[in-house]
C-alpha cells in the first residue's frame, strides 16, 4: 500500500498570467512527481498541489523564489488517510 507520510497539499494562488505560466512549467517537471488536485485557471484562483515529502523543499523554494503566494492546505496527507481508515473501521464495527 502506498503511504503518504509527510506529503502536503499546497493551496497556491497565482497573482497574474506570468505566475500561472511558471506554475504550469513546474507541474511538468516529472522528477518532482507532483499531483495536481486543482489546475491553475486564472489569476487569483487557487490551484491545489499534492507534493511528496521528498519534493517539498524544492517546490517551496521555487514558489518563494518567484513570490508565488501559497498556504498549506493539508499538513500531512497520511494523517488524514489514517483518520479516514479509522472512521471506516468504526462504522463497519457498528
Amino acid at each position, binding site marked *: *500500500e502506498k503511504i*503518504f507520510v509527510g506529503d502536503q497539499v499546497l*493551496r497556491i494562488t497565482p497573482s497574474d498570467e506570468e505566475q500561472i505560466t511558471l506554475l504550469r512549467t513546474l507541474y511538468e517537471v*516529472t522528477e518532482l512527481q507532483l499531483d495536481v488536485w486543482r489546475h491553475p485557471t486564472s489569476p487569483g484562483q487557487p490551484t491545489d498541489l499534492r507534493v511528496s515529502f521528498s519534493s517539498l523543499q524544492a517546490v517551496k523554494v521555487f514558489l518563494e523564489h518567484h513570490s508565488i503566494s501559497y498556504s498549506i*492546505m493539508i499538513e500531512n496527507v497520511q494523517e488524514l*488517510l489514517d483518520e479516514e481508515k479509522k472512521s471506516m473501521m468504526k462504522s463497519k464495527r457498528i
Partner: protein
Amino acid sequence: GRSTDSFDFASYHTIDEIYDWMDTLVDGHPNLVSKFQIGQSYENRPLYVLKFSTGGSNRPAIWLDTGIHSREWITQATGLWTANKIAEEYGKDPSITAILDSMDIFFEIITNPDGFAYTHSSNRMWRKTRSINAGSSCVGVDPNRNWDAGFGGFGSSSNPCSETYHGPYPHSEREVKSIVDFIRSHGNVKSVISIHSYSQMLLFPYGYTTAPAPDYQELNELAKKAVTDLAALYGTKYTYGSIADTIYLADGTTVDWAYENGIKYSFTFELRDTGRYGFLLPSSQIIPTATETWPALLDIMVHVLEHPY
C-alpha cells in the same frame, strides 16, 4: 431480509459493500429499482447500473454517474445517498414522482470500479482506470479524457504517466465504451449528469472549444437556478458555466460527447470543497454534500421533464 435502514450513508464503503447495498436497494423497491450490467471493467469487474422505472417501454431517460475518477470518494458516497433518495421519495416528493411517472433514471454509482478498488487497497490517490499501457510502465487512462469529443487535444496528455492521459484511442477504456454503447443503444437518453469533486462547480459543454454551445443560454440559466437552490441549504457557493470558460480547455470529456451525440441537457458537477480537504473530505460531510446537491439535481431533472425535445 435485507434492509437499507442498517446501511450507514455517512461512511465511506468498499466496492463489495456498495455492490451488496445495490441488491438491498433492489430488494426493498422491487417495483421501482432494478440492477443490470452494461459491461465489464479492464480487470473484469461488473459495471452495474441501477434502473429506476415505473414501467413503459424505452421511455425518455436521464443518465447519472458518479466516481469516474476513483479517488473522488465523496461522489460515490453521494451517489449512494442519491440513489436511495430517489427510491425513498418516489410517491412522496411530487417532483421525483412526476419525473419517474414519465421517465426512467439510470444511475452508475461506481463508474470506475478498478480504480475505486485500487484506492481502497493500494493507492488512495488513484484517479484513472487500471488498464496497462503498451510500451509504458505507467498504468491507467483518464476516463474523462477518453471520450470521442475533440479527443486528444487541450487539457489532456499523450503521456501514459500523466493523470490526464487520454488513452490510445477514443473509447479505448471498457468503462467508457460500455456507457457509450448503452446510451447509443438506448437511443432515448435526454440528459447526462456526471458527478465529480471537488471544486464546487456546475459545468456544461463545451470543454474542448471556447465556442458557446448552441443551447448555451438555456443551459446557463438552468445551471444558475440549480446552483442557487444548492446554496439555499448551507450557503455553499458554486460557480457555473461552460467547462472551457470556467476551468480550462479539456478535450474528450463525458458531457461534450453526450452533447455532441444529441443529449442537450449534459452537465457535470464538481461537489463541495471545504478548502481544507480536497479529495479527502471527511465522511461526516457526505450527508451535507449529498443533501445540498439533491435540489440542484432535481432542478435539472425537472427541467428535462418539462422541456421534451
